């Protein structure tokens, strides 16, 4: 039904909008994955307990976590500027 409601091929502009919507949907997934990365860092008390490996310093962790944060905010800013209102109206129909 959705296939019927929307044409198979779109104009270049609508096509671009659809891909931006895809990006908007994927952004939180990317953010979630990036923020899972710290769990892989070596820990003193972690189950692998690599005694010889130095645990990551909190300052590095802060730089990483807040760096990801800033990148995500900038990406969201970019997407919110690029996605136009008309596309939003059609967005729910899916693609």
């Amino acid at each position, binding site marked *: 039904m959705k296939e019927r409601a929307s044409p198979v091929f779109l104009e270049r502009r609508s096509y671009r909008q659809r891909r931006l919507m895809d990006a908007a949907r994927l952004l939180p997934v990317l953010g979630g994955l990036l923020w899972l990365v710290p769990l892989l860092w070596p820990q003193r008390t972690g189950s692998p307990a690599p005694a010889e490996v130095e645990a990551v310093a*909190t300052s590095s962790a802060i730089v990483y976590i807040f760096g990801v*944060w800033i990148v995500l905010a900038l990406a969201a800013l970019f997407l919110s500027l690029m996605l136009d209102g008309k596309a939003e109206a059609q967005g729910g129909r899916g693609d």
Partner: protein
Amino acid sequence: MATLNILIAVCLAYVALLFAVAFMAERAALKGRGNWLRSPWIYTLSLSIYCTAWTFYGAVGYAARSGLEFVTIYLGPTLVMIGWWWALRKMVRIGRTQRITSVADLISSRYGKSGLLAVCVTLLAVIGITPYISLQLQSVTLSFSSFAVNDPGGQSLIAGYDTALWVAVGLAMFTILFGTRNLDANERHHGVVMAIAVEAVVKLFALIAVGIFVVWGLAGGIGPMLARIDASEIGQWQMDGGRWVGLTFLSAAAFLTLPRMFQVLVVENEDERHLRTAAWAFPTYLMLMSLFVVPIAVIGLEVMPAGSNPDQFVLTVPLTQGQEGLAMLSFLGGFSSATSMVIVASIALSTMVSNHIVMPIFLRLTQGGASGPSDVRHVVILARRLSIGLVLALGYLYYKISGGGSALAAIGLVSFAGLAQLLPAMMGGIFWRGATRNGAFAGLVVGFAIWTWCLLLPGFGGGVLSSGLMEAGPWGLSWLRPHALFGIEGMDPLLHAAMWSLLLNVTVFVLVSLVSFPSPLERLQGAQFVNIFDHSDNPQSWSGGIAQSEDLMIMAQRILGPEEVQSFFQAEAARQGLAGYLPEPTPDFLARLERELSGAVGGATAHAMVAQIMGAATVSVEDLLAVADETAQMMEYSSQLEAKSNELTRTARQLRAANDKLTQLSVQKDAFLSQISHELRTPMTSIRAFSEILRDAEGLEPKDLTRYASIIHAEAIRLTRLLDDLLDLSVLENGQVNLNLRDGVLSDVISHAIAATGTDMHVMRVRRTGPASEIVLTTDHDRLAQVFINLIANAQKYCDAERPELTIDVSRRGGRVIVDFIDNGSGIPPHAQGMVFEKFYRVADRQAGGAGLGLAICREIMGRLGGTLGYLPGQGGAAFRVSLPAAQRMAAQ
């Protein structure tokens, strides 16, 4: 003492400022000058009520205890916010189109406007949020006492007054004043939102100011700060992976389900486009809020004496460094965080309590809204005000009873885990059409029960459950121990409870949804919620019924107020083209009225009230049509497919027919070619043979010479005639013939034809009958004569009667002129009758020297002249009928 007095003065001045801001914002909105109130920035700032005093004070304490784990509380909302395209956009659209007033209203509306579900969600929210409110009261009290530590007089002052009580009373007043000004929850609380936005700026500014003071004032810059962080107790990355993921998830869930977040995210939303600004601005706000938490915690751990409460570092670090002004600012930040949260949470909770608990009870007691003397409007407002008082009183009581939990953050997380139980019903409701009321209810009850058992009761005031119960489980059932469900021990209690409650909640929700069957209203609402972007304009429709518009008006006036209702009804009547105040109770009008009402009393109540007047809570035919929408579309689609396939079949058939015809034409062409070459060859053969005799034979008799020459001549003439005929035929067939139209009498043409054939009356008698001389034709007389000549000549050639006779009969019949040529011969045998008009057909064995093209040419000519030529059987001989349109005669006159 001086410090504390100044503090109290500043605090009161700040509150006065907030009152003024709220008041001015209300005034501006009232006068229509409130465009700036509707900016996306105000919206984004109002979202900051997520950052409560828990955030402001608690995050630093949290960081001092567990390092970077505190940040998970902000990561969840950040992910939800930048993923606005998934859920928030849909929730906001649903909230706006369905006039949703609260999270309970959302869930109850989705599941068929179920009152039971609304009550259930409301209770869960009240139970979940009350500790949270008490947490805010506690933090304000604590911050007051932090100031009083160095001030013995102040301490006695603090001891003499119950700060928490005064704060609670003050907040209740503010909330009642600005939060219940409008009855319609969908009319935005501009004053409240504006005050919250101001508080959001104050708390961000305060925290950043303290952070800057700590980093650049105490630590000496970013580099030394980072070094000191690494050197501190929390200087190394240590994280429980389960808590990291679990808390991020819980905070994300709570961001969506917390009543106060729903209030600012959805209910107070002015414009869907504000979301796109908030999508990046709010994560930035959260990032800034948490940026300086670790530095403050680290410096606090360094400079503060051991054993001091890390939850108060934001205040106490500037205080111990002699920065009274900064500490004051910091206090205002914390105060802002606490008050804004309490205000919005109590508005949200009071809306839920009054709409889903008080109003239904009241309506039941007074036997419905249409009758009874009381003014429902006042009842609603009163209910809401009482609910606000009740919520704050509960918060205060909890604070008193629990005696103030040691770690602020723990209470917050318990609350988060409780509210997260709404997530399955909510997300399932807006993304899954199969979710049913029973499923949602069962899931909620299960999740709520587990949360209460495993998290709320053990934590309540240091544990209301006896240690024996905790150790051995109820009735000795060890697998029911609150911290070790199903015998799985050693988990973090919070994660344990959250995991089991949500897991079983989702499982039960899905299973019950799968096996139960929803009511029509539920299915309708489900379709509208899930496909909100497809049809977001018409949420509900009523039809039929014998609703009296007057009754509706009486009922609506009690709720919305007379002026508004009268203008609404008048506008509706005008829309229907009626004068006066009473429109026809059409489905459209009833749907709009219900939506207006639901803004005031919630969807379920509004539905019930209109239903009471309508006679029954019916689902109209139109509703069912909406449910059947998908089916209809599918059927339409399949019928289109069918039509398309039929068309294809038809085209294929046509193609096949065209192919057959082409094959046939090809065969005809071959036959024609072989025929014509045969026809050409016969005279050529005899010409060649006789000319060879003339050339080679010697001593021929002159008589023979003449005879042979005559044969050659005759054959050449025959050949010429054949070629003429072929040429004539091809010209006619190609339509290239030029007709020489003129007027003339039919009898002249016939006479001309008879004369041209040189018919000897002795050989064949020609009889002419009919009014030929009266008929004037406008046609090509030469061509017509050619046809007649051919027919007469044929009669001469083929009539085998003893005394041949040809009758030419002219008549007029039905607007046509008919000329019959009938001879008295044996006629044409039936099998040949259809063939005589074909090219090269000759009635076989008779040698008459024709090429067999005459009749074919005649038929072509008649076609060009607009007439027909056909064989007329059953006339006692060969009979041909020429028919011409008489209109040409008329045209001539």
